[in-house]
C-alpha cells in the first residue's frame, strides 16, 4: 500500500487531545509573568489566586455546580482516587459497601480493589451487551451499609453513555453518595449535576483540548469526604499541593470554548462518526460495532474485526498516517484483553481484534473518507495471512 497523504490524521482524541491554540494563548501569561503562588499574600499571589477562582467559576458553570464545590486536582485519575478513597474513609462508620460497574476506568477499578484490601466490600454490577448498566441492578445492589455508587458517565473505550440520571435518582432516594467519572463526556455532551443527582463528579482537562496536568472533582456541598493528599490545606483542605495555575487557567479556557461550541461540535462529530460506522460495517465483512448504536459519545467508534489482531491494524494504519487505538491488549502496556470488551461479552480473540477510532475538533470529512478507503485494505491484508481464512 502506498502512502498518499502528506499530513497525519489523528483519530485518538479519547486518549488525549491537542491543546487548542486559544487555550495555549490564555495559559502563557501564567508561566513567567503571573507566576505567583495562590497562597501568597502579596500581589503576585493574589493575581494567581484570582485566576484560580475565576477558573473555578468557569468549570462549575459548565456543570451547573457552585464554584466552591469544585476541587482542582492533577488528573482524572487523582479525582477518581479521591472520590472513592475519600468517601470510603470518611463514611466507614455508616458502612463499608461500594458499588461500581465492570467497565470503569482502571483508576476506579484499581481504587476499588485497593479498598477491598482495606476491608471494604465492593459489588461489581453487570452490563448488557451494549455496555449499559441497568438502574434496576443498582437499586437491587444497594444495601443498608452501602456508602457509595460509582458509575461512569460515558465509557472511554466503547463510548456508551450510562443512564446516570436514573442511577443518581435511586442513590438520592436511598441516601447513598453517587459519583460519576465524566472524564470522557465533560465538554462533549451536556451535564447538569443537579438534574442528574450527582454528588461527586470527575472531569479532566486534556480530554477537552486543555493541557495535561489538570483535572477537577465536583464535591456537592455537605458531602462527607476525606482528603488523600495532606499538607498546606489548599482546595478547601481536600487537596493540598501548590496549585498548577497555568494548567487550570488552560482547563478553564478549554471549558469556555466547549460551552460555546459543544452543540455545534457534537452535531458535526455525530455526523462524521455515523458515516464512519456505516462505512466500516458496510465495507468490511465480519466487522461489528462495540458499544451502543445510539447512546454513545458523538466522537467514539469502536469495532471488532473477525480474524485480525488489533495491534497489527493500528501499526499498519500508523504507517499509512492514521493514529488510532487498539481496543485492547497486545499494546505496549498490558496483555490482558480489555476488561470493558470482556464485560460486554466479547471473547478474548474478539477483544484482541478490536479498534477504537475517536474523532475530535479537527477531524474532517476527508479524513473519514481516507480511513474508509484504507482500513478495509488493511483488514483484508491481515486476514490473508491468517490461518482462519476461509
Amino acid at each position, binding site marked *: 500500500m502506498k502512502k498518499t497523504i502528506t499530513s497525519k490524521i489523528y483519530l485518538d482524541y479519547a486518549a488525549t487531545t491537542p491543546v487548542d491554540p486559544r487555550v495555549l494563548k490564555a495559559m502563557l501569561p501564567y508561566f513567567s509573568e503571573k507566576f505567583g503562588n495562590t497562597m501568597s499574600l502579596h500581589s503576585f499571589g493574589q493575581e494567581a489566586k484570582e485566576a484560580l477562582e475565576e477558573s473555578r467559576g468557569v468549570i462549575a458553570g459548565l456543570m451547573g455546580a457552585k464554584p466552591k464545590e469544585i476541587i482542582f486536582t492533577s488528573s482524572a485519575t487523582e479525582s477518581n482516587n479521591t472520590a472513592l478513597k475519600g468517601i470510603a474513609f470518611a463514611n466507614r462508620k455508616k458502612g463499608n459497601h461500594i458499588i461500581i460497574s465492570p467497565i470503569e476506568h482502571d483508576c476506579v477499578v484499581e481504587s476499588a480493589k485497593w479498598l477491598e484490601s482495606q476491608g471494604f466490600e465492593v459489588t461489581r454490577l453487570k452490563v448488557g*451487551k451494549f455496555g449499559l448498566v441497568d438502574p434496576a441492578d443498582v437499586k437491587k445492589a444497594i444495601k443498608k451499609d452501602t456508602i457509595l455508587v460509582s458509575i461512569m458517565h460515558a465509557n472511554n473505550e466503547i463510548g456508551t453513555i450510562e443512564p446516570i440520571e436514573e442511577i443518581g435518582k435511586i442513590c438520592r432516594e436511598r441516601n447513598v453518595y453517587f459519583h460519576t467519572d465524566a472524564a470522557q463526556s465533560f465538554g462533549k455532551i451536556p451535564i447538569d449535576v443537579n438534574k442528574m443527582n450527582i454528588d461527586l463528579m470527575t472531569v479532566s482537562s486534556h480530554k477537552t483540548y486543555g493541557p495535561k496536568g489538570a483535572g477537577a472533582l465536583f464535591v456537592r456541598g455537605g458531602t462527607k469526604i476525606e482528603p488523600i493528599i495532606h499538607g498546606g490545606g489548599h482546595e478547601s483542605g481536600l487537596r493540598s499541593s501548590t496549585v498548577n495555575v497555568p494548567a487550570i487557567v488552560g482547563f478553564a479556557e478549554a471549558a469556555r470554548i466547549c460551552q460555546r461550541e459543544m452543540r455545534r461540535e457534537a452535531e458535526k462529530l455525530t455526523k462524521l462518526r455515523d458515516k464512519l460506522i456505516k462505512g466500516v460495517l458496510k465495507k468490511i465483512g465480519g466487522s461489528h460495532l462495540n458499544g451502543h448504536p445510539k447512546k454513545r459519545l458523538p466522537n467514539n467508534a469502536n469495532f471488532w474485526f473477525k480474524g485480525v489482531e488489533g495491534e497489527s491494524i493500528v501499526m499498519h494504519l500508523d504507517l499509512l498516517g492514521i493514529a488510532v487505538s487498539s481496543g485492547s491488549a497486545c499494546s505496549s502496556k498490558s496483555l490482558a484483553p480489555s476488561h470493558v470488551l470482556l464485560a460486554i461479552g466479547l*471473547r*478474548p480473540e474478539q477483544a484482541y481484534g478490536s479498534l477504537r477510532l475517536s474523532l475530535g475538533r479537527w477531524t474532517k470529512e476527508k479524513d473519514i473518507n481516507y480511513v474508509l478507503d484504507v482500513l478495509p485494505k488493511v483488514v483484508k491484508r491481515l486476514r490473508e495471512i491468517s490461518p482462519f481464512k476461509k
Partner: protein
Amino acid sequence: MPLYSKEIFKHFKNPKNVGKIKKPSGVGEAGNLICGDVMKLYLKIEKNKKGERIIKDIKFETLGCVVAIANTSLLTTMVKGKKLEDVLKIKKDDLIKRLGQPLPPIKIHCSILAADALKEAIYDYYLKNEIEISKDLEKEHQRITKTKEELEKRYKGFQTFEKEVLKK
C-alpha cells in the same frame, strides 16, 4: 527510541513466506496463552545430496500482532535451506538479536510463537516418518501442547461467560 526496530517494521510491512504449502511434510501450530495469538507453520522437507534432511520450503499463517508477524517472517528466511538439526538449535535470543533493538519486555512472548510452531512442524514430520525424537524436542512438544490446551480451555470459559451475559 521507537517502539519497534526498522527490521521489525520491514518484515511486518512485507512479511516473507506467507501462505500454505500443499501436501506439507509437517505442520506445526502454536498458540500463545498470554495474548491469544495463533500461528500455523508448514514445512516441505527434502534430503540433500549428502542425505541430510533440509527445509526445502516454509510458509506461515498467523493471527498475530506486529512482533509475531515480523518474527515469523524473519525466522522463515533464516531456516530455509538449513538442516533440521541446525534449525532445532536456534535459540529465541538469536532471533531477538536479529530483530535489532531489544523488544519491549512485554512482547518477548510474542516472539516465541514462531519458534514453537517450527518445533511442532518438525515434530510432526518426525512422527509421520517414524524418525527418533530427542528428549528435548519431546519436552518442548509437551509444553507447547499444554499451552494450546489451556488456551482453548480459557476461550471456552469466556464463551460460557458470554452466553450468561447475553441471556440476561
